[in-house]
């Protein structure tokens, strides 16, 4: 957890450095290309897209597709744009991310600081859960949600995302807390702190980096999920990915690519912002535990 130092760099001649920069820039282009395609085409008119070069920048920049995608385009019977679905997603993602992160932290805490026989087996089982393909849980999950009376509700959707996020959040926190000095927990116990006081007062305040990693991971996964969103949401809780799919994948009808791309970027915006804003802490967080397997 020490401050990252960058002294690993190998001293090299200027020729090598030019080569390094060339390679880095090449990959910058590789990673940015699809984004460029989306952004530039979202600013073109439909005619220009039909007629022209996909990689070329727009000739006359128009923001109309963005306006359309956000608030005007037809999604289902209503011409509301993506706006209402955007907020649906927010309402779903925030509690799901919070809950799964919180539970992951508690699990990690128990698994490293309050071990009891069988705890490693439980951890193994939870970790394996990361690898289950979501398609197979669809039907049984639907039944359980029905039995719980959560079918088609926001609560149901939040529960599903929380459950299937637990494997990774637990993994992250367990690895992080494994490196957290146990003596601190003991000291707090002697000070009279209870199980939860130790957790809140001692562990959580020191968990910043790993919380960032977990939130990024969970936020990305939950926000981008389509399968659960489509299957378990209802008319008033449809997440934005489902709406975007409705916009982009409608089988018949004219395809307004510029609106599609604008909608796609709008959909991706929150996750992009999360990455850009917390990118710095992300590597630090990974350093602090998540990469330790």
């Amino acid at each position, binding site marked *: 957890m020490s401050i990252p130092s960058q002294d690993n760099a190998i001293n090299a001649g200027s020729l090598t450095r030019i080569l390094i920069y060339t390679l880095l820039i090449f990959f910058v282009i590789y990673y940015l290309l699809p984004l460029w395609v989306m952004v530039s085409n979202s600013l073109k008119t439909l005619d220009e897209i039909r007629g022209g070069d996909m990689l070329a920048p727009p000739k006359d920049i128009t923001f109309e597709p963005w306006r359309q995608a956000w608030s005007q385009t*037809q999604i*289902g019977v*209503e*011409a509301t744009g993506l706006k209402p679905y955007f907020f649906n997603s927010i309402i779903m993602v925030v509690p799901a991310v919070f809950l799964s992160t919180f539970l992951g932290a508690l699990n990690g805490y128990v698994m490293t600081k309050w071990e009891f026989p069988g705890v490693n087996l439980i951890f193994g089982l939870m970790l394996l859960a990361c690898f289950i393909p979501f398609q197979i849980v669809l039907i049984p999950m639907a039944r359980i949600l029905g039995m719980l009376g959560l079918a*088609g509700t926001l609560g149901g959707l939040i529960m599903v995302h929380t459950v299937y996020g637990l494997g990774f959040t637990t993994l992250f926190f367990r690895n992080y807390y494994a490196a957290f000095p146990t003596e601190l927990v003991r000291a707090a116990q002697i000070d009279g702190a209870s199980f939860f006081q130790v957790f809140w007062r001692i562990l959580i305040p020191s968990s910043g980096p790993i919380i960032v990693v977990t939130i990024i991971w969970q936020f990305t996964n939950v926000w981008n999920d389509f399968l659960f969103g489509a299957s378990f949401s*209802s008319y008033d809780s449809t997440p934005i990915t489902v709406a975007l799919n*409705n*916009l982009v*994948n409608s*089988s018949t009808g004219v395809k307004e690519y510029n609106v599609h791309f604008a909608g796609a970027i709008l959909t991706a915006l929150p996750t992009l912002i999360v990455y850009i804003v917390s990118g710095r802490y992300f590597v630090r967080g990974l350093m602090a535990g998540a990469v330790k397997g």
Partner: protein
Amino acid sequence: MERKLALKATASALVLGLAASAATAAEVEVLHWWTAGGEAAALNVLKEDLESKGVTWKDMPVAGGSGVEAMTVLRARVTSGNPPTAVQMLGFDIKDWAAEGFLGDLSDVAAAEDWDSVVPPALQEFSKWDGKWIAAPVNVHSTNWMWINKDALDAAGGKAPETWEELIAVLDAMKANGITPLAHGGQAWQDGTVFDSVVLGLGDDFYKSAIIDQDPEALGGEQMVEAFKRMEVLRGYFDENFSGRDWNLASAMVINGEAGMQAMGDWAKGEFVKANQVPGEDFVCIRFPGTQGSVLFNSDQFAMFDVAEEQVEAQKMMASAVMNPDFQVAFNLVKGSVPARTDIADTEFDACGKKGMADLAEAAANGTLQGSMAHGHGASSNIKSAIFDVVTAHLNGEYGAEEAAEELAAAVEAAK
């Protein structure tokens, strides 16, 4: 069986519970995949009609793969005991759900409005189960159409082809003129759409025995080999980049003259109209050569699920509204399809629309109206998928014609 009963029990218990909490408002929840653009706007007509009658419309659009995603969602909804009121469905899916016992009964509305006499029997095949009406048909799409760029056609002789041989002649001429003769998108359902037409071109009876009845001898026989050979011939007129292309991009190729023609259902018209093209002047619509007088159809219907007592009234109002001639006209004008009712005047429709309605009425009368396999009206979805597998594999060069016919017979047998 027991399980299903239990499922239905939970389902109705839940619906009852939900209904109790919102007993005052009549509402319908509609699952469909008309999710964007004009067709979604057209559906809004229905919504507004119902809302004017005090029925709330809860919209559940799920796009993707002509209803594939929507059917997945439907399974989840039904399994969770929370089925939507009405679901957009195609042909055999309706039968499958009816067979599982999840659909409701519209017979009294149907009787009151005499649906039996205005809906063609070929459609009724899918709208009724066990003598009861279970679904309200919205439209009839016809899939054996050919869309031709007028300029390209003129350059290739000017006469619209009516037989296979004439078609080949025109395609050759277009090729000689330096354009892609046939625009096609290599997706399974598009391959299937062309295959449907080719099979139909070899005779209505052959289509019936091979596709509808799935007679192994027809599936693996001489004529099927011929059908696959024709597919190979057509394949020779595609451009190199056909695979994976969306159908509307293929239409665009015809619209801007890159390609000569496209074999596609009547929904393609929307693309032409949207590009300010006029039927007869800028483009020509004909039946797939060799299938004149026959119509392959698919029909979007709203299948009505077995919902709680309180919802039934609203459900019936919706069914009635769907069958309302005004809605049928308004919706189908946008969609490019023709009304499911045959008693509607064609005055508001354009040339292609009028032709479509006339063809439909004629085919219905002559018994040459058959369900399109590629669009779920020729065979149940497992058989459809099996046929797609072979057709697509063959079109992409995995099999020769003889081999493909054998495979087809075997695959259909395996999927049954």
